Every structure is written in C-alpha cells, then in structure tokens.
C-alpha cells in the first residue's frame, strides 16, 4: 500500500524535546512576559528623561492595543486583515464626533467608538467568512481603502484631510488627565484590559476554537465549532480592540486628519504582529513597540532611515521567522542548554 508522505517524515523515533506553542509551560510564559511588560512600562515612564520619550511610550502602548487585536485575528484565527486602519479610524472619529457634538464623557465616547468599530467588524465578517488567505487579504485591503476614502471625503463628519478633527482634553468627570504623565495611566489601564482579555481568549476554549479554525476548518466544524461564528467573533474583538486604540489615539493626538488612517497604518500593524509573535499577546506588544520606536531611533540617519528600517526588518524575519519574542526565547533556552552540558 502506498504510504502517505507524512508517515516517512514523522518516523516513530524517540522524540526530541519539542515544546508546543500552546502547552501549559509556554502559554503561561506568555502571561508572565505580558505581566513583566506591564510592570516595566510605568517604571520607564518614571525615568523617561522628557515628555518626548513619554509620548513615544504612550504612542507605542496605543499601537500595542491594536496589535493585540490583530494578533487574535491573524495569529490565532488565521484571518489576515490589511484593513485594520479602518477600525482604528472608526474608533477615533466616532469618539471625536460624540464628544464634540453630544458633549459625551470622553471615556464613554471611547467605549462607544470601540463598540462602533466592533459592530462594523462583526458586520463585514460574514461576507468575508468564505474568503481565505490572499483573497481575504485583498478584500480587507479594499475595505481599508474604501474606509480611508470615506474618512477623507466625509468632511462634515470627519473634517477630511483639511482641517481634520480636534478634540478637547481627556478628563474623567471633570478631572483633567490630559497631561502625558496622567494619560499614560489611562492607556496603561486600557492596555492591561486588552492584554487580559486576549490572554483569556488564548487560555480558554475560545482561543482553541480559533486555532482549530486556522489549522483545519473542516476538522473544526466536525468537532462542533461553528466556523462562521468563530470568524465573526474574532473580527468583532479584533475591531473592538483596534477601535479602542483609535479612540485613545484621538485623545492622545488631540488633532488629527484622515492621513493617519491610510493603508500605511494597516501595514504597520501587520508588521508589529508578524515581527513580535503571531501566537503570543506579549509578542504583539513587543512588536508594536519596535515598529513604533525604530523609525524614531533611525531619525538620525535622515536619508537612510527607510533603508536601515527595511534591513532591520529583513534580518529579523530571516533569522527569527516565527517572531522576535519566539526567537529570543528559543535563543535563550539554547544558551541555557549549552551551559548545562
């Protein structure tokens, strides 16, 4: 009888120690790493020499929230989206509109902005649920472009490219939290919330169902997982977190226009997730920091900025294809093992 190729590939020899990406040990290491990051961030905020450093830090944290959302979509459920900037923009514009026109509490406006992004994410998931891989990439790309055109041209609502939109100071019940020192804590709580929810998704059957859909949709359906519903859920939660990120951005930037919500931001988010780690919440956060900070660091190179940035990306992808966090951890465990021998 003809044997399937996989039989020869996986001969029943004594296995090398291969830890699965989702076994207890590694999974809790993701949580641990996330907690360490959440502790280190305020420490850095304390020692940051000036407000420029602090604003880069807060900006990185805002991007982290969106990256965590995309991490669930792409890393867990295998649903690529190159249109995340649309949800980011929805979150920002709805937040700004509600505060400017209805005088809503900023916090409530951000919550409703995130909910609006979530509703749109859920809405587009159904027509998209039959698409796979590059078709899905193209459809989400198209969605992002359409939404950008809407943002740029619906000037009565968004202010378009010029003059754009402005919002007041961020405050909770009249208590001003708009200074970078205080706004840091607002974003810190939001990132903690995002990481907690995403970590819970990863640790329960919700995340397992998403992974199942990614690895084999037929098998997922055969064990009772509603594949369409799983995809709708991940689009909704991914859009929600990205919308939350957008709402926080509105109060971070205070004044912005549609250029922020172009394809460039969608690509940036994609790079954050792919670079950091596809299956770790902490990886998405690390990736977000790298993609936010690197261009700032390379500012000194002036003309060569883009080149240096590109080369750095290529090197990381070449030598750590499963992401920076994965790469550093496996490098660490390899060094430890060498020490043991």
């Amino acid at each position: 009888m003809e044997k399937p190729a996989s039989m020869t590939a996986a001969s029943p020899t004594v296995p090398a120690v291969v830890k699965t990406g989702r076994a207890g040990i590694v999974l809790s290491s993701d949580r641990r790493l996330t907690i360490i990051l959440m502790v280190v961030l305020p420490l850095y905020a304390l020692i940051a020499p000036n407000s420029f450093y602090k604003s880069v830090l807060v900006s990185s944290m805002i991007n982290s929230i969106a990256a965590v959302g995309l991490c669930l979509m792409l890393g867990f459920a295998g649903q690529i989206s190159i249109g995340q900037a649309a949800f980011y923009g929805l979150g920002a514009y709805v937040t700004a509109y509600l505060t400017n026109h209805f005088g809503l509490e900023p916090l409530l406006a951000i919550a409703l902005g995130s909910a609006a992004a979530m509703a749109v994410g859920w809405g587009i998931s159904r027509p998209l649920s039959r698409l796979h891989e590059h078709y899905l990439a193209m459809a989400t790309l198209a969605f992002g472009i359409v939404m950008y055109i809407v943002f740029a041209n619906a000037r009565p609502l968004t202010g378009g490219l010029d003059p754009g939109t402005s919002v007041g100071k961020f405050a909770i019940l009249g208590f001003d939290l708009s200074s970078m020192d205080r706004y840091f804590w607002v974003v810190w709580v939001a990132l903690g919330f995002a990481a907690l929810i995403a970590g819970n998704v990863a640790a329960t059957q919700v995340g397992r169902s998403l992974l199942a859909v990614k690895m084999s949709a037929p098998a997922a359906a055969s064990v009772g997982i509603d594949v369409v519903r799983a995809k709708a859920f991940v689009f909704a939660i991914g859009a929600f977190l990205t919308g939350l990120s957008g709402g926080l951005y509105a109060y971070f930037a205070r004044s912005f226009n549609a250029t922020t919500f172009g394809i460039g931001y969608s690509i940036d988010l994609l790079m954050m997730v792919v670079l950091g780690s596809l299956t770790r919440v902490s990886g998405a956060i690390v990736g977000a920091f790298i993609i936010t900070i690197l261009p700032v660091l390379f500012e000194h190179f002036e003309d060569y900025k883009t080149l240096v940035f590109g080369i750095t990306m290529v090197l990381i992808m070449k030598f750590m294809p499963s992401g920076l966090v994965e790469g550093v951890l496996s490098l660490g465990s390899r060094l430890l093992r060498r020490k043991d021998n």
Partner: protein
Amino acid sequence: MLTIEHISKHFGGLRALHDVNVEADRACVTAVIGPNGAGKSTLMNVISGFVAADGGSVGVDGNETLGLLPHRMCASGVARTFQNLQMFSDMSTVEAVVTGRTRHRKASLLANLLMTPAVRREEAEAFGAARDLLATMGVPEPFWPRRAGDLPYGMQRRVEIARALATEPAYLLLDEPAAGLNDNESAALGDVLLKLARQGIGVVLIEHDIELVMNVSSRIFVMDAGTVIANGTPAEVRANPDVVAAYLGEEHE
C-alpha cells in the same frame, strides 16, 4: 439507527451517488467498502454535512438531519474522521482532543473572556476527559503534551479518533482509518473499534483493508460507481459474485 435513504449526488455531469441506501445500528461496526471512486467518501461527506445531497434523507435515531451544517451534525451525535488526516498540528496532542468537547461546554463567551471559576472548572474537566480518551485510544502519555503534528502518523490517526470520541457521538464515521497503518497497528485499530461498538457507539467504517473489515464488521455495504451493489454479513458479501466482479473486474456468469 443511522438511516441513509435514496441519497443522490451529482458533481456536474458526474454521478457520484445514485439512490444510495445504507443503515447502521448502534453498538456494532458497519462497513462501507468499494473500489476507488465508488462514492464512499462522498457519502460520508453527505452524512456529516460537508456536501449537500441532491435528494434523499439522512436520519439519526429517527430525526432528519440532511442539510444540517457540519457543526450541527456533530451536535446531532455524528462524529467523523477524515481520509486525509485533519489534525490541529500546532496544538498539543491533549488540546487537540479537548477541542472535541466543544459541544459539551456550557460557559458563555463572556464567562470565557472573564475566565470565571466555572470556566476554569470546565477546562479542567475537558482536559481530564481528553486524557482518558487518549489513554483509551492507546496514545502513550509522553505524547500528550507534545505538538500533535509531531506525532507518528499512526498515533495521529488515534488522536483524530479520540478527538471525534470527545464529542460523545452516537455514531462515529471513520474514513479509511487504517490507511498508512502497518499490520499490527491495523489489528490494534480493529480491537479498538470493537471496544467502541461494545460501548454502544455505532461505528461506520469506510476502509480498503478488507481483512480489517471482515474481522470487525457486523454488516457490510458494497458500493460501486455511486450505487450500493450488495450488502450483508461478511460471509455473504465475500460469496457475492457482483462484489468479486466489482473488485477484481472479473467476468462472471
């Protein structure tokens, strides 16, 4: 009783299934055999909801289930494995089996997102059930925490059956479970199938390994070119000249 009545399916001009009638009882092994292209896998895909039939009826213990989506079929008590292994390769082996508990999970989505104590308890129960099933299927414990895709092929086959069993099916459809197994593994699989039947599961076996089929089946349906050409006990089927002709292409008078 799993009753398949008058099922027909055309793919364009190709007649994959024509007026197929098959019955499978609980607590025994029913085999569907036939040469390549006879329509066995298409039949299995129709029963499990992956392919929509042109007409006919599929009944699970008296309830009509034709037209239900695959995840609904699972909820109706029909589980399956796949001809080409469909493993959740990047999960640990035990987690791959835990996915099979999905339809028995009661906690809401919100409870999961908040990881309430009830969810933690459910998780622990699901892992316990998965470990028991892996033990039942003879998957050695050292394999359980390992990446499912790294297991030897025969082991992955067992994990796939364990995953299907985790749904607690009334009927278990197995699409060529012995493909790629050696003689020992195949015999061990036969023992497992008989054990499952003794537990009350209706096992429906699509298989090319005739020795395995003859050893474990109570009833065999023989398909050729999209129709059932014979059915009966292993002895009856073996003696049937139509069956011999379909398999060996012999002329017979």
